[in-house]
């Protein structure tokens, strides 16, 4: 039975309107979860986009005000969950900066290895998802196999695959095992091959290039004004990298270049991420070499010597009173935290991941703010897609690498 037009209540003025309003998300497959975009379409061309976020807002900053420092590490895991080790390390580095803890070189290099692995894990997801959203699914699964390998390395080091909770203030919770290094070697050997193959699938494929070139472009000035950082800013042509500008964790000891694009479109972002993966591989190789150079006693160092913040060894806890007292103090969060404020940034997979920590000397932070790169550059999304087609919006969204956990915190 056909429905008469008067049965349907149309919004005011719908009869005259020549455009369509399309609700993209929150459960649309390409929004990877949780962004809502209300698009005003003329045919398939986007006239206006309005984005809504906050669908997985979890009140990290409020939780952090109730937790001692070490308990915040699991929270940072869940910021950008594709590369949680970077967040973990960023948080530990922030704490170390506030507490004045000096880490030994070996710890720095191990951290660099883990962070760069995380960067690769993140970039490979992002780039292969760009492939998936443009319709080619296989490349995604090829690269995912190597992400499994990265996860195996994490698992060997910290016992978990994704939300790693890796590292402690002052170092790692345990030394890297030989298995971990073997897996790392395997990864270093096999991954470049696969990455090359992935590039062959996409990099010079005209269909892919036409889909991405000129899609969601942004100029360097606008990108800066919008607070872009990380690969997205570099794709726009600005060689800003926290690892180079404010080196942390001994990044100054490594040779690497900053890949930059020119137009800031999806293809540039793709290429920049691709190139960064190569750079990361080279950094890992260098760091691994440096780690191997430590011999004897030095090769056993995996944490800083700070009894006030790093848990004593278990067997001492079982037997020695002093160690037990420190143990209790650290777990209860009673060790002295100097009052002060500190901002520390690391180069997260998506850009400058900053931690602004204000301490009033209590057992928990007085205020902790995460500078989440995603959240800041997502506001440019309407500007990026307006004037493009619906398909462009989808590719742009995936090539920005929006991670909901980071965006909404």
């Amino acid at each position: 039975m056909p429905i008469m037009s008067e049965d349907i209540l149309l919004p005011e003025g719908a009869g005259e309107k020549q455009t369509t309003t399309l609700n993209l998300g929150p459960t649309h497959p390409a929004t990877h979860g949780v962004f809502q975009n209300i698009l005003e379409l003329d045919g398939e061309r986007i006239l206006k986009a309005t984005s809504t976020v906050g669908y997985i807002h979890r009140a990290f900053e409020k939780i952090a005000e109730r937790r001692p420092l070490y308990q915040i590490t699991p929270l940072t895991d869940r910021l950008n969950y594709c590369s949680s080790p970077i967040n973990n390390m960023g948080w530990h580095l922030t704490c170390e900066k506030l507490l004045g803890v000096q880490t030994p070189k070996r710890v720095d290099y191990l951290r660099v290895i883990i962070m760069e692995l995380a960067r690769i894990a993140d970039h490979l997801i992002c780039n292969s998802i760009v492939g998936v959203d443009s319709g080619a699914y296989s490349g995604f699964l090829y690269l995912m196999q190597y992400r499994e390998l990265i996860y195996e390395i994490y698992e060997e080091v910290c016992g978990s695959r994704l939300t790693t909770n890796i590292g402690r203030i002052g170092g790692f919770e345990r030394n890297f095992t030989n298995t971990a290094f073997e897996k790392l070697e395997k990864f270093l050997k096999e991954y470049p091959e696969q990455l090359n193959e992935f590039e062959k699938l996409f990099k010079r494929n005209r269909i892919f290039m036409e889909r991405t070139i000129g899609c969601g472009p942004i100029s360097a000035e606008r990108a800066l004004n919008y607070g872009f950082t990380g690969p997205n800013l570099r794709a726009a042509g600005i060689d800003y990298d926290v690892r180079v500008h404010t080196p942390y964790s001994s990044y100054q000891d490594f040779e690497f270049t900053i890949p930059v694009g020119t137009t800031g479109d999806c293809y540039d972002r793709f290429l920049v991420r691709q190139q960064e993966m190569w750079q990361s591989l080279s950094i890992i190789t260098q760091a691994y070499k440096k780690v191997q150079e430590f011999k004897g006693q030095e090769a056993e160092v995996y944490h800083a010597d700070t009894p006030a913040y790093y848990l004593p060894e278990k067997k001492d806890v079982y037997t020695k009173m002093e160690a037990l007292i420190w143990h209790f103090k650290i777990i209860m969060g009673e060790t002295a935290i100097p009052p002060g404020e500190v901002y520390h940034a690391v180069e997260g997979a998506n850009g400058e991941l900053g931690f602004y920590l204000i301490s009033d000397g209590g057992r928990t932070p007085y205020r902790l703010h995460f500078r989440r790169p995603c959240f800041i550059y997502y506001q440019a999304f309407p500007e990026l897609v307006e004037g493009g087609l619906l398909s462009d919006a989808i590719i742009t969204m995936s090539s920005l690498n929006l991670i909901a956990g980071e965006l909404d915190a």
Partner: protein
Amino acid sequence: MSRPVQYNPKVKFQGIPEGYMGEGFMATSFEKVVSLARKNSIWPLPFATSCCGIEFMATMASHYDLARFGSERVGFSPRQCDLLMVMGTIAKKMGPVVRQVYLQMAEPRWVMAVGACASSGGIFDTYSVLQGIDQVIPVDVYVPGCPPRPEAIIDGVLKIQDLVHAEGLRRRNSDQYKELLAGYGIQ
């Protein structure tokens, strides 16, 4: 700091709760065939909001390959799917959306809450997070873990399969089921 013990051999498991089973010995072979078919063709709708979604990708990928269970046709249209896999934190803002998606699904439909956040809120006991999706929709299987390993997700899918297999064709018409839905205010 490696540990002296390796496994916990006493994993807890309770069988399928009452009200799911078919008509017992009355179940016809036809019914069995249908539930067998359903069991092997569970099309998931991944409602992936955060971390667990990433592990779901790993479950779909080559190493674990959910396709082996006939579940690789991941549909994003709720009409076409059988299993709603809620993965990741569901904030209060998202709650109505989950419910809407559930309502749009065609019977028979199953729901799997993957990960601590979806099942209970996990560490996010905060003003903005729904403390478990079972506050808005009925859940069939809970998968603990934050995020669960792909093995655990597959384990959850296997549990769903057992449930589908055991479930009678007429369960969806039973009073008990209607009561369950009415408990959530669903007609």
